[in-house]
């Protein structure tokens, strides 16, 4: 079943056309990686999916419904698509636990004790339960990103969007975050991952989408796309990344 359908999406920042007629369908339970050079539009595409960016033309449908059709419903829609940012964006004035409960109590109107219970279960999943009361500013980058993943999971989203989740991390912390994302993929969650970690994309994805200069150049099974790309631009890009 299609959960997200992107059709003929276009976006420009002033004169610069960052997305040109993009069409992409994501199925329930599918893990799709978006790869491409910086400035290829992959992050912008991801941000359009939860309306952090406004697109100029085209439609995005979530479970068959145009996500822009009902402006009042934007906030409700956003609870269905969890976002994990490159720079974590944890709420710095709150503890780890509060980061995970604030959305539940304020947006979903869950009772406090229920919210705490769910938050602790997701913090356990990402291995951060012992830090529940710690201020987030005391954490390492890898720990912050794991908390950010728990915060997103607490809203019980249907889709998870990862915007370069490991790009801001020190190399020794990349592994712990990828491990968490891998375990989420194994649960059968629907995920769109923008990443520069090619080995990880190859291993975890059901489908890889290569973008360049605002268009989807090539997409397909990771095993095929990484080993025998058909388009020259894909070959050039991969030869720079895969050695």
């Amino acid at each position, binding site marked *: 079943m299609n959960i997200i359908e992107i059709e003929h999406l276009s976006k420009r920042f002033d004169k610069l056309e960052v997305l040109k007629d993009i069409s992409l369908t994501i199925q329930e339970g599918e893990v799709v990686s978006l790869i491409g050079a910086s400035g290829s539009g992959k992050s912008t595409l991801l941000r359009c999916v939860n309306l952090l960016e406004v697109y100029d033309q085209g439609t995005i449908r979530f479970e068959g419904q145009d996500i822009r059709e009902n402006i009042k419903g934007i906030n409700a829609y956003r*609870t269905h698509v969890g976002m994990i940012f490159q720079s974590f964006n944890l*709420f710095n004035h709150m503890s780890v636990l509060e980061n995970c409960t604030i959305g539940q109590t304020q947006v979903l109107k869950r009772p406090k004790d229920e919210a705490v219970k769910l938050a602790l279960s997701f913090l356990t999943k990402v291995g951060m339960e012992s830090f529940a009361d710690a201020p987030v*500013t005391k954490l390492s980058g890898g720990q912050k990103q794991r908390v950010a993943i728990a915060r997103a999971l607490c809203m019980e989203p249907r889709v998870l969007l990862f915007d370069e989740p490991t790009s801001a991390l020190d190399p020794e912390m990349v592994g712990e975050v990828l491990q968490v994302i891998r375990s989420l993929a194994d649960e059968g969650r629907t995920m769109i991952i923008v990443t520069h970690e090619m080995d990880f994309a190859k291993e975890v994805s059901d489908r890889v989408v290569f973008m360049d200069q605002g268009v989807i150049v090539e997409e397909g099974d990771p095993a095929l796309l990484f080993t025998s790309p058909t388009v020259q631009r894909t070959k050039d890009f991969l030869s720079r990344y895969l050695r």
Partner: protein
Amino acid sequence: MLTKLPSDLFGGALYILQKYGPLFWAGTKTTLLIALSGTIIGLFIGLGVGILRSLPESTMDNKFKTFLIRLVKLVSGIYVEVFRGTPMIVQAMFLFYALRPVFHWTKLVAGIFVVSVNTGAYMAEIVRAGIQSLDKGQNEAARSIGMNNFQTMRHVVLPQAIRNAFPAIGNEFVVNIKDTSVLNVIGVTELYFQTTSVAGITYRVQDTFLVSAIIYLILTYSTTMILKIIERKMNMPVQNGPSSTSTAFLVFGNKREER
């Protein structure tokens, strides 16, 4: 207790303080009352206006909402510019006489009003700078978990913005302790007004104003110290944006140390 006014400066000052102590005390109380209430009311005005001035304009909004937001921004912008761009002494004279037929107010109430609206304009800029100094990722993270504008402001943006802006907010209070002195032009019996009264009785201007200066200094210095203690207490590490005095003063560099 001395019975005759000594001729030297310090002896004279001590004599004047002993003899006219109650007048100075009354003035000090009025000064503190106006400075404190003016700063607090001004902070609330500043919060309101500062938030209005930081409202996001979304291209997804309809035309009427966009128009309304722009209008509100224009009006609040005019308020801020007018009250920061004119001397408080002029505002005091103008507002006291212009609004007297409407409010039928006492000089004290008028004084508090003037300091409040004046401080409000500065606070608005402090709040706005505090909001803008936050990483925009904080806002995006709040929106991405489904928070609306109000929830984002209330739970994510403002708590951090106010903490970052606290040194500048406290500085407003210190400035107000000194600046209430201009209210003597409308006859508010604050410390400066009382000092001129005493000087008029004693004919010893420098001795009398030495007493006044020392009282002002004690007020501002102790306030500064108290604010520093509070600041240290709430200064748990904040990653984004300025958290300590020095950076905050840089960010809010358009502040008036003197006016």
